[in-house]
């Protein structure tokens, strides 16, 4: 079982790295879908979450549906409708981004090592993955000009946080109702962002954030 969860985690890491160096919007969206599914699966393979009731099963199904299908689907439509140029248009080049991803992994490794003392053991890879995902999400938001990439970055950040949540906390606290609420928020968030993007596109004929710099002092 452990091997399987590790495999998933490695896949997530890989998806993060690929997203950092991907130059096509569509690829990015697809990777996000994959990552969403993976992230949703992780808790199922963790030891302390073995006993999952029927409510849990339903919840995870919904979660996979939302993270793996609904949200990427939304993004997919958004890209199709909105982005005229399908390039990612980075502020920081792809190679540098990839390099950053590697550094991020190292940093997460370092943080995890440091935190090992105070953590219940056995989750080092999970934690590394989570922190890397989180960091990469923030990095994507800061280093790409397209507004959609920022939504994607946000999702990645969310995934990272979710992973840390699963890694660190006992399931008993976070009831499914609550987690569902969180999920719903994310979904609605992405929807709202999509609506705004749509409007922005109509108003500016583009969704480049370079155009979104008029409000300043």
């Amino acid at each position: 079982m452990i091997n399987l969860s590790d495999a998933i985690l490695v896949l997530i890491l890989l998806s993060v790295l690929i997203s950092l160096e991907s130059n096509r919007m569509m690829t990015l969206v697809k990777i996000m879908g994959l990552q969403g599914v993976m992230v949703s699966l992780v808790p199922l393979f963790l030891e302390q979450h073995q006993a999952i009731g029927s409510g849990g099963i339903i919840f995870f199904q919904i979660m996979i549906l939302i993270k793996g299908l609904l949200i990427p689907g939304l993004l997919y439509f958004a890209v199709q409708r909105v982005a005229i140029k399908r390039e990612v248009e980075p502020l920081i080049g792809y190679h540098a981004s990839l390099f950053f991803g590697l550094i991020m992994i190292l940093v997460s490794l370092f943080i995890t090592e440091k935190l090992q003392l105070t953590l219940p053991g056995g989750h080092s890879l999970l934690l590394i993955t989570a922190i890397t995902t989180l960091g990469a999400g923030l990095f994507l938001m800061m280093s790409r000009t397209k507004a959609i990439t920022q939504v994607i970055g946000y999702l990645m950040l969310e995934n990272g946080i979710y992973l840390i949540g699963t890694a660190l906390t006992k399931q008993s606290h976070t009831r499914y109702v609550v987690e569902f609420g969180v999920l719903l928020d994310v979904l609605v968030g992405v929807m709202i962002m999509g609506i705004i993007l749509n409007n922005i596109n109509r108003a500016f004929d583009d969704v480049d954030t370079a155009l979104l710099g008029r409000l300043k002092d």
Partner: protein
Amino acid sequence: MLEFVFLLPIVMGGAAFFLPVSLGRGILIVAALLHLQLTVMGWLGKLDPYFPDYFSSSPEGLLVLLVTSFIFLFISIYAISYMNETEMQSEHIFISCMLLFLGTMSMVTLADHPIVLWIAIEATTLVSAPLIFINRSKEALEATWKYVLICSVGIALALLGCFFITLAMDIKEIDAPLTFSSLNAVAGQLDPIWLKAGFIFIMIGFGTKMGLAPMHTWLPDAHSQAPSPASALLSGALLNCAFLGIYKVHVLMHVAGLGAYSSNILIGFGLVSMFVAGIFILNQPDYKRLLAYSSVENMGVIAIGVGIGGIALYGAILHLIHHSLIKSSLFLSAGNILLGFGSRLVKKTGNLARLFPKTFVAFFAGFAGVSGFPPFGIFISELLIIMGAFQRGRFVVLAGFIFCLTLVFAGAARIVMRISFANAGEDVLVEERMLRIIPSYVLLLTSIGLFLWMPETIFEVIIDTIKVLGGSVNG
């Protein structure tokens, strides 16, 4: 059932979306009135939570709820006239989102479970986004985009903070329900390192929403671009809700014996916020942004007051109440100015005293109030914060506090005077209407009223609120 307080506006908001516009306005007022009634019932202790695991009525929550509900009523009255005047296109969306906004904010005030609190705060962001870009101008879209994205990122980090707090519990193998009330009970046993980490992330997360610098960047954009009733709500109600999240965790930290740590962080953010606000208030060309930065500054004041504790804590809570009343009134007046002159730029306005005498009185009184002149409550709150700061020996903080207050005052006074007195053309786009004047007057008069006579119940609730943090009015 306590949950009615937020369910009612949410349901009515949902209904308003589908009902015809003419009915929607009625629903807005009726919902506001009903909500106020429910709030009062909540105050009287008539309502018990149906899901005590998630919701409860804490004194700080009740305070914020009352303020929110009160100012919402008057903002909605204003909004009706405002919508008339601007011939708003998607009025049903606006009304519906206003109500949803009220509902989610009420949910924040009643939430007792950290993650439920988180969900509610994130929900406020989402339902308020349409309020900002309702007129779909380029600037409004940009502002909304920044608002949603930055707040979402910030709040996502707060979720991480929530997880850390849970972890602080798990590590020590404590088995207690994850609610603030029960956390406070076991606070002493929580793992301090993770608690600190949790506080940092929650501080940054909700601090983003509260508008503390340097995470405040969305605030001036969103507040200036939103239609004035929405700005008033954002500034007067939403920021308080975010503050509530921080406050609850600060209480937890305090009970866990880490109060000094969280206090220092709060004070740091407070000072930075005040200073940053000062930078931008000086020579600010846009008066709605001015008000927005003033909100940043006042959130800083509240953070500092809470961080200092003691009598300053009472001052901070008082500041919160009065700031909400006065700032929302100011935004409503700003709405009238915007309607009258058709521009947010200070240099396009002027001579308010002659052209819009009623708005002028409200606007200037609001400015005097927010600058700490009597007879407005901010006079007391700022005085108490200064006194508290000395009592705790925080001289450097105090020096910064006073410097920033003066800086902000100097900057704002210049612009307010320009708007009020400078010579301008005689063209007026939209005349003043009583319906758009009375709400701002009522809000100001409420502040004056609370300055002259503080009802015993409110006083006691404030004392209840600050008791946990060791705050009292006797130093």
